[in-house]
């Protein structure tokens, strides 16, 4: 199992987000690999500013929840740390964000895969990959623009830096699409039905 070795690994991307977001910002997440990377690499500085569907694990929760959070706290930046799979489930809430003037930021770690399922298939099912490929569909920049939101693709740390700054100063909702390696695993990993001492660490 591996971590992404290059520039656009999940850890670097989320640490960049942390560096640029004011500490009082509210973060929600979707459900999947990006959620666990957020748990590992996005440090919450101000208590009570991080929310996720932790119990039921509802994909598609984070984006509408971020809209609700922004209505409650219009004075702070609100970011949905998302994956492409989860965001697809409630992406039509972009209409609400744009028309109701609720400028949240959707931060998509896009591996064009149902990444957590893919990780389990790589780990427990001998790499038989079934039903996980999202085929690069849709184009999230165009999708955002079609709703009247801002869409930005960030393919380097430099572009990511600019994209986050642009989103933070934007009056409309912004979708930042960040293509990442579909083979990157979330580690450490305590497999289901095992104890915390049986943790799988990066090789």
């Amino acid at each position, binding site marked *: 199992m591996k971590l992404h070795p290059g520039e656009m690994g999940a850890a670097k991307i989320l640490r960049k987000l942390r560096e640029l977001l004011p500490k009082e910002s509210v973060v929600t997440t979707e459900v999947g690999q990006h959620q666990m990377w957020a748990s590992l690499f996005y440090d919450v500085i101000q208590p009570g500013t991080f*929310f996720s569907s932790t119990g039921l694990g509802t994909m598609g929760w984070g984006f509408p929840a971020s809209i609700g959070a922004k209505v*409650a706290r219009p004075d702070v930046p609100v970011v949905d740390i998302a994956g492409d799979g989860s965001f697809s489930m409630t992406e039509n*809430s972009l209409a609400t964000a744009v028309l109701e003037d609720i400028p949240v930021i959707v931060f998509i770690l896009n591996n064009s895969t149902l990444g957590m399922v893919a990780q389990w298939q790589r780990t427990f099912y001998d790499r038989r990959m079934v039903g996980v490929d999202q085929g690069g569909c849709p184009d999230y920049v165009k999708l955002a623009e079609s709703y009247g939101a801002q869409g930005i693709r960030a393919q380097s740390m430099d572009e990511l830096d600019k994209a986050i700054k642009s989103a933070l100063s934007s009056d409309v909702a912004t979708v930042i699409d960040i293509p990442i390696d579909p083979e990157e695993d979330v580690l450490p990993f*305590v497999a289901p039905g095992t104890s915390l001492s049986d943790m799988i660490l990066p090789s």
Partner: protein
Amino acid sequence: METMTGAKALMTAMEKEGVKQVFGLPGGANLPMYDEFARCDIRHILVRHEQSAAHMADGFGRVSRKAGVCFATSGPGATNILTGLATAQADSAPMIAVTGQVPVAMIGRDAFQESDIIGMANPVVKYAFQPRLPEEVPEAVKKGFYIAQTGRPGPVLLDIPKDVQQNEAPMDFPDEFKIQGYHPWNDPDIASVQKAIDMLLNSEKPIILAGGGTIISSAFAELQAIAETLMLPVVTTFKGKGAFPENHPLSLGPIGMHGHAEANKMMTEADCVLAIGTRFSDRSVGTFEAFEKRLKIIHMDVDPAEIGKNQTTSVAVVGDVRASLRIMVKLLLQRSVKKLKILFGLNTLEKLKHIGKKI
């Protein structure tokens, strides 16, 4: 008493609860409520799918700690919010979902867009009401908000038949009400907190595990006071992530399936844990048997049903965790100064006194 429709009574009662906005989507069976938006100050935020309205209300509720409100029509509108209700229930988020229902006389006749949403939602809500008369609406709203926001928070469903929305009745908006059998708050038992302190002080490698309940009750200052005073490392569940500043020297981050390696390691090496507002989810603790082996567990939780559910508890403190932690800080202050000096040094004691004054 003013005479008005059930729909108007609904909006009036919600205004009295301080509701400023509703996330929702209209349909045939909730049109009388929607008509009221034209005549009141509550903002309506239109969604494209009812599931999202529920999640928006949930997100609003978690951040503001006041129940968010979502509206959906009967039938498919109502079934579309089920995932949102279950999500809020699983994460103890305060929320009010108001669904339209077919008229009372049509219930049970497989009417157009009829669904038994009360039956479907019951396992995934904290409570569900279906007023059958317009004059029952104000009290249902009042009780709904009270249940959603007190004790362990959760989603409450109000399913209102269309004729109940349309018909007029003299309305009484009660300030006082009784809910039989519902006791959301328990005063923490001081003797149990004393026992918890003894157990922590007499263990070799104590640790704090902060769960989502710490965030729900805003026990941030109290948690930090205890951790810094006793110099205890703090791990969290995933839901408790951010209960404690993650840049703090005592913070080790979340434990669990994808927890921080150092947090999981420290957790497995501990001999005593102060577990605050957590249900010991399998996702956080791994196998239940391995987790509780050789571990003394002090469990603070607002919900007595959580005590002993997933883990064997050595000391249980039932009550709002913020109140329980405050008692713990106060009791630590009253402890023999001499003993605390030896254990933790004078500086930490001074700090404790300072913190004790603040909270």
